[in-house]
């Protein structure tokens, strides 16, 4: 389709650990349209980050991308050689990580780190890369940009560091920005500012965004389309309004109900009873059945497939088998 920027088909990324096989991403398919914000939600450990890293083939052993296609602008990234995909990393697809405290190298100045990507992908020399870095710092709303450019990460606050990370990520005008829990490590006021910044930048640049979070509040604010992941699989997907109004999968419903109003930084997702299954010993049938209050016999025996349950809304749950 002409307006799909990225199409992932049946992606599987497994980890061959000493204790056994971990199917971190197990047959995930989705698309991101041009200019769209895709929200990816799920409890910690459900495979969100590994899905994102698989797009850029940033999986280190014992992990391995077993199968799947990642079609980005008509090219299958999975088939690219290391040298070729390196040209895409940080250029047409860039990543913002969760921890602004640790995702900047402590021995480099902010300017050097931003300049690194610029020099690499835009063929600018040091002087011009520095100019561009200052410009980017201004774009992301960092005051005193021409001083901050020469400062080290430890001299900046968490919020400022995350802004610097964003400056680095957008410095080469990426077509797809992957933001892996970009605000999770920040306090609430700063969170709101960073989200605001990302929304503005996205509109200015016209980039698509893959926004990974376990915070449904963030998804509601930012996303156009949402996929919900559980234990390496997509269990539900729909447009954001539809999903919030009309959630189908018991897991999604659980997530929505456990969204607290006041204590924003509590471990809210744990309020679904039970725990995320041990990736080495997945339950039979529907992976969610030990925690599901609607579980039926069939749920323990065989796995439901992701199917359309009403128009533009898919879920993987036996409750909706045969509704369409």
């Amino acid at each position, binding site marked *: 389709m002409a307006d799909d920027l990225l199409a992932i088909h049946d992606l599987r990324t497994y980890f061959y650990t000493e204790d056994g096989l971990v199917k971190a991403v197990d047959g995930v398919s989705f698309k991101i349209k041009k200019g769209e914000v895709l929200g990816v939600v799920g409890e910690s450990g459900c495979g969100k980050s590994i899905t994102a890293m698989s797009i850029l083939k940033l999986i280190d052993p014992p992990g391995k991308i077993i199968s799947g296609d990642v079609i980005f602008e008509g090219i299958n990234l999975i088939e690219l050689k290391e040298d070729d995909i390196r040209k895409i990393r940080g250029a047409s697809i860039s990543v913002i990580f969760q921890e602004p405290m640790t995702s900047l*190298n402590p021995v480099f100045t902010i300017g050097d780190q931003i300049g690194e990507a610029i020099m690499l992908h835009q063929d600018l020399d040091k002087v011009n890369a520095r100019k561009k870095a200052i410009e980017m710092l201004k774009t992301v709303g960092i005051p005193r940009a021409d001083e901050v450019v020469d400062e080290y990460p430890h001299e900046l606050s968490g919020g400022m560091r995350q802004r610097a990370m964003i400056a680095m990520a957008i410095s080469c005008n990426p077509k797809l920005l992957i933001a892996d829990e970009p605000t999770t490590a920040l306090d609430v006021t700063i969170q709101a500012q960073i989200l605001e910044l990302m929304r503005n930048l996205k509109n200015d640049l016209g980039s698509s965004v893959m926004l990974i979070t376990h915070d449904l509040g963030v998804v509601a604010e930012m996303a156009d389309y949402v996929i919900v992941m559980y234990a390496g699989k997509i269990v539900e997907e729909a447009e954001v309004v539809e999903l919030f109004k009309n959630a189908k999968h018991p897991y999604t419903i659980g997530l929505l109900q456990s969204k607290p109003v006041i204590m924003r930084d509590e471990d809210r997702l744990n309020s679904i009873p039970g725990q995320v299954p041990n990736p080495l010993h997945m339950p039979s049938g529907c992976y969610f059945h030990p925690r599901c209050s609607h579980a039926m016999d069939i749920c323990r025996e065989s796995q439901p497939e992701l199917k359309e349950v009403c128009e533009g809304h898919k879920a993987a749950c036996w409750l909706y088998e045969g509704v369409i």
Partner: protein
Amino acid sequence: MEAKSIEDVRELATEDIMSPWKLAWRRLKKNKLAMLGLYILAIMVLLSVVGPLVSPYTMEQMDLSNIQSPPSLAHPMGTDEVGRDVMTRLFYAGRISLSVGLFAVVISVVIGSVLGGIAGYYGGFIDSLIMRIVDIFMSFPFLPLLITIAAVMSDWKVPPQYRMFVVMILIGILSWPGLARIVRGQILSLREQEFMQAAEALGIRDRRKIFRHLLPNTYASIIVSATLDLGSAILTESSLSFLGLGVTPPTPSWGQMVQVARDLYTLQMQPWLWIPPGICIFLTVMAINLFGDGLRDALDPRLKR
């Protein structure tokens, strides 16, 4: 500007945070022994560099009418068996001993950090290979090898000024494994840090990741280890030269100057020939160790933040 909030207040508060190096220097300055070491070392370097320039004698200048004379005004440390000024030779010897030590350490740092960096970054087979080489070097009988090489050099009549370089290179080549281990260990944990994942997501090449992103994070331990290695390199050079296996006459080094004490008569009757170089070796190595220990404490990551 939407950033005019808590952020700005925080910015002000963090403004006077110091860089890690400044912080370390501040801690170091408080350590009296380390500073004593630094001063002694500075004096030794100064004497070796400036001494020969201001001395009225040259290194080889002989005064056969005035041999083996005890300290006097004209020769504050006396003269040797061919009438050369001991103090002037001591300055020159300092140049040799210090630079042999320094170059040996430079060689060992270059080999050690490159190999350690590669081993730590790639892990797996490459790591095992490099670390087995390290094991071999560490269990290698150092002295017999040097004795053999010294014998071969004498056999081939290698001129003294070249033997000095051979000694440098040998000490360097034999002392990199310790540093390689330290660097490897640090890189191993550093490469798992999120900032390396971020570097990878920018499309940076391996070589740049190792040498620009990872190694600079280990500079503190490289510097500490190199400083302490400098002490042992100087000591090794002295021992070798004392045994006649290192720097050979007429080139002086501190160890080589002490060699005269092997003669019982000199040992007893002409202490001005061997006590000064002996003290120089002792003071320098001790100063380096005091400073190195202080540096280690000052840069200790466990004390940081």
